[in-house]
């Protein structure tokens, strides 16, 4: 058996041993994984998907398209001179001297925080993925836009390896072509060498009946900087585990999350930041706007390890419930194992600010439009940090469309 086959078999064995998370698992208290059991098996097929004009239009970017978990080369547009490869292609040529390296892309780190059965399954069953290897000092001159289109269960596995001083902007976008019942299981591994910079956006906008389980695992070397924007708009159930390891001195991460949910949608982000080295900075801003009977879950855990002196960590989570039946479960957690740190964290669940509402109304904005406007502004603030304006306005429009809005407000923001 080749080392690769062995690695994937190990992952499958691990999955069989640990299975899917259950409600007894503290980290899965609010998200019912059992109903995804029958959707695990990927169906990598591109049958009947016409992708013309899908996704973010007018974006000046390199492009990688995955249809039901398979790289669609014909739809893609990749830069010259940069290693951006298909995982499936790599796997085909895995007998050579790179065999060990390729096998490593499928290794499951059982000790990693928030590791679960979906992740093991992903390593065992991934049909494809993007493998980006950015050399030291290389700069990806345009963002890389990775569009995932699905109407079947799919398993993709991305690895982004960013060299010293290198820079990349990566946008993952997930959409569906119809409202089939299916599960997307995705993992993205991001490794930043010293002083590397990455801006990583994930926009989850899958169909009403779709489910989405993701793991984003980031390891940061010295003085590297990682910025994340996670936007949850679609799917009936979605769960993301975002795990950041601040491993090298002076590294910084900035994690932004936005959920705009309605109907019976359920979205859950568990984030975990490990401050392992001195002088690292972490920022986290999560906001949710929940309507209907939707359910948001945010669990943000920061661990400041012994020796991680001069840690500067700030986490804030704000939630607005637009309906009596919407629900948020939020839990910011902080564990500190040394004294020399500056940490703040907090969560709010609230209605809109009365003073702001009155101010807007006193300027002639109707009560309804004022509420909608403040709700939109609340959500939009999370997107301020997004550097790509085309992507930002795409997300703003999509989020706005999901929020209740009157004609008044539409006119107001339309211009």
């Amino acid at each position, binding site marked *: 058996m080749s080392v690769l086959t062995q690695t994937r078999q190990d992952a499958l064995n691990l999955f069989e041993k640990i299975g899917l998370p259950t409600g007894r698992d503290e980290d899965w208290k609010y998200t019912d994984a059992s109903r995804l059991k029958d959707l695990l098996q990927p169906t990598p097929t591109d049958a009947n998907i016409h992708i013309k004009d899908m996704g973010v239009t007018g974006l000046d970017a390199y492009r990688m398209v995955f249809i039901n978990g398979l790289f669609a080369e014909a739809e893609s547009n990749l830069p010259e001179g940069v290693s951006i490869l298909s995982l499936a292609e790599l796997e085909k040529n895995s007998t050579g001297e790179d065999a060990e390296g390729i096998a490593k892309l499928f290794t499951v780190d059982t000790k990693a925080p928030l590791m679960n059965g979906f992740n093991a399954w992903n390593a065992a069953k991934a049909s494809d993925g993007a493998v980006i290897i950015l050399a030291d000092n290389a700069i990806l001159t345009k963002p890389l836009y990775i569009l995932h289109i699905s109407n079947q269960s799919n398993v993709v596995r991305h690895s982004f390896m960013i060299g010293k001083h290198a820079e990349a902007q990566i946008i993952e976008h997930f959409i569906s072509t119809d409202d089939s019942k299916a599960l997307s299981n995705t993992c993205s591994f991001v490794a930043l060498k010293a002083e590397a910079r990455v801006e990583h956006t994930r926009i989850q906008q899958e169909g009403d009946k779709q489910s989405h389980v993701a793991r984003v695992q980031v390891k940061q070397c010295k003085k590297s900087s990682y910025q994340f924007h996670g936007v949850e708009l679609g799917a009936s159930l979605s769960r993301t585990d975002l795990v950041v390891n601040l491993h090298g001195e002076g590294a910084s991460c900035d994690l932004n999350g936005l959920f705009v949910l309605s109907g019976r949608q359920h979205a859950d982000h568990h984030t975990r930041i490990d401050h392992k080295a001195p002088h690292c900075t972490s920022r986290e801003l999560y906001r949710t706007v929940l309507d209907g009977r939707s359910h948001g879950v945010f669990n943000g855990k920061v661990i400041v390890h012994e020796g991680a002196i001069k840690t500067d960590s700030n986490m804030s989570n704000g939630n607005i419930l637009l309906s009596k039946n919407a629900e948020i479960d939020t839990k910011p957690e902080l564990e500190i194992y040394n004294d020399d740190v500056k940490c703040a964290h907090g969560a709010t669940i609230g209605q809109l*600010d*009365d*003073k*702001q509402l*009155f*101010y*807007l*109304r*006193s*300027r*002639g*904005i*109707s*009560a309804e*439009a004022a509420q909608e*406007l*403040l709700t*939109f*502004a*609340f959500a*939009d*603030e999370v997107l301020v940090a997004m550097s790509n304006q085309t992507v930002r306005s795409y997300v703003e429009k999509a989020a706005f469309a999901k929020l209740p809005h009157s004609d*008044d407000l539409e*006119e*107001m*923001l339309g*211009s």
Partner: protein
Amino acid sequence: MLEVKDLHVSVDGKKILKGLNLTINAGEVHAIMGPNGAGKSTLSNVIAGRDGYEITSGSITYKGDDLLEMSPEERAWAGVFLAFQYPVEIPGVNNTYLLKAGVNAKRKHQGLEELDAFDFMQTVKEKAKLVELDPSFLSRSVNEGFSGGEKKRNEIFQMAVLDPALALLDETDSGLDIDALRIVAGGVNKLRGKDKAIVMITHYQRLLDYIEPDFVHVLADGVIQKTGDKSLAVELEKHGYDWVKENK
């Protein structure tokens, strides 16, 4: 234009206004002075329609209509404007969008066409110039990160764009530097007119040198204790509020 009759207002069961009467006619400028906590902001908030105030008796009529029956936005459409003592910051809401929405909502209510974007921007730029507001403030979020004085100047800028019939300026002069005070007062003076009225709440006689009032009222213990002309403010400065109570 505005007729406040025997107004009694409580907050959280505490009586603040206790039978206040005030008549304001078109073309007039009124100044209201009075000690801290007397109820000056309460009065202006009640006129603008802020909730949280319990109006236990009395009435307010504005241009013949029962103001207390109107929502804050309806009052704005009818020409009532409040320049807040403490303007609130609204992150994520663009200053210019807010005004455009306000102006158009009012026009819609009056059965007028919406202003086109170009005409609106012309007005905005012209009014910004009037109060010497740096154009960079136009594209910023409402009051976010503005200094105290900048917030006050922004209030008067908004007033200039919305062009109200009745403007209530709640301590707009507090926090303005000497030059800003002169500029803002100049802006307010340009907005005076025979079909408009201005009510200024202030602690300082100095403002009244710039914007000359027709009447000066002293509000204390929940009622207007004394009304006079500009010279009353000078007397007040000299003798303090106890003198008013003793010389009703």
